């Protein structure tokens, strides 16, 4: 049987591959799609692959910056980012969750000092990468749903 691509190749932009099934929508949310973007975006969910099912997001004419990649690492830690130029993969890298998450997630505790007007960025220590568990550097609270707290 002839293999067919579920989503056509893109000329340039970013392909986010190996997203855990069901998390593609969260990836779109943290990238501000569609609100902050006019790019053509294709989403495939529950696609079969050698390593089980996965979601894929293709964004045309937009290359993700490191800050966006850091955000993706929080909700799709096994994802790969492919930068496409002229229909070829120009760069490929895995997202990497660092030991500290700065300025990306806001604390779930409304009375945490990091949620006030103080001149500091939110800061979390990564306690566990799988399943993801992060702890606020300031108030030591651990948010339940990190994807809901991404700034």
């Amino acid at each position, binding site marked *: 049987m002839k293999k067919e691509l579920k989503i056509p190749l893109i000329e340039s932009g970013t392909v986010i591959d190996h997203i855990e099934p069901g998390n593609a929508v969260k990836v779109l949310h943290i990238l501000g799609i569609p609100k902050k973007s006019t790019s053509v975006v294709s989403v495939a969910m529950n696609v079969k692959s050698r390593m089980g099912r996965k979601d894929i997001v293709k964004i045309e004419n937009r290359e993700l910056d490191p800050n966006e990649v850091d955000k993706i690492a929080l909700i799709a830690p096994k994802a790969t980012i492919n930068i496409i130029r002229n229909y070829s993969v120009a760069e490929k890298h895995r997202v990497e969750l660092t030991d500290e998450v700065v300025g990306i997630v806001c604390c779930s505790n409304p009375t945490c000092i*990091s949620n006030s007007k103080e001149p500091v960025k939110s800061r979390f220590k990564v306690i566990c990468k799988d399943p993801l568990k992060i702890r606020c550097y300031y108030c030591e609270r*651990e948010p339940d749903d990190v994807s809901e707290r991404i700034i």
Partner: protein
Amino acid sequence: MNFKGRDIISIKDFSKKEINYILEYAEKMTPYAKGEKHKEFLKGKILSSLFFEPSTRTRLSFESSMNRLGGKVIGFSDPSGTSQKKGESLADTIRMADSYSDAIVMRHPQEGAARLAAEFANSPVLNGGDGAGSHPTQCLLDLFTIKTEKKRIGKKKIILLGDLKYGRTVHSLAYALSLYGAELTFVSPPTLKMPKEVIDECNELGVEPVQTSILEKAIKDADVLYATRIQKERFPDAEEYNRVVGSYKINNELLKNANENLIIMHPLPRVTEIDPEVDSTTHALYFKQAFNGIPVRMALLNLVMGGSL
């Protein structure tokens, strides 16, 4: 062990070895805390005492400790007369106090405030309570009290009673007692149970706390009963508070079932949870516990400001 310049923000910043060192140091400070011996360990040093929230014991005992050590105290106990009311950030207030003094002790209504202050101050910051967050010096004086009275902390049967959900002292204390391998029982109304993350931390340290709402049963073989006030100010809604206030009352009737060596501790202020008739029994240790704030805070101030002993 060198503590000079170190911040005291959370008990979790300290290893068991470091905590033991502080407790031993506090024991050596006791005659000075009682006024039996005198030495100006911190002569010429200034402590900023910044209390953005009301406090009696913590503020007075820090100030008394600094005076006993021969140092001076500046600061405020009510932020209404300060630039905070004009909208100044905490970071700026701290920068200013830092330039006026050699160490800062602070209490603030927001969790994480002391950690933030430590980022902006060059001199050491001591956390005197940050909202519903940490209160490490209370935790250290509680450990000091148990160790002094019971000779050890590990293997002792310790009950934490009352508001275990919102009470800041019990969260740090449960963690610290678990470091020592104490046998913990948490007694609270069902709606004020110890948060799961605190229990998880105890488990990670090899302690499996028992949870119950019945004090009468738990008290029978306990070595320490640590009672806390159900704090109205921490409740998001008044109805929830009204449902649970007065859930427990420690009185002589209850204590008939207790181990004769049981000690009762309380971070104070108490309201209705301990009947005054208990004060004259050998079980009552809460006033001595409050005094223990002095040697422990003297030890901490002397250590972080580099005084000799």
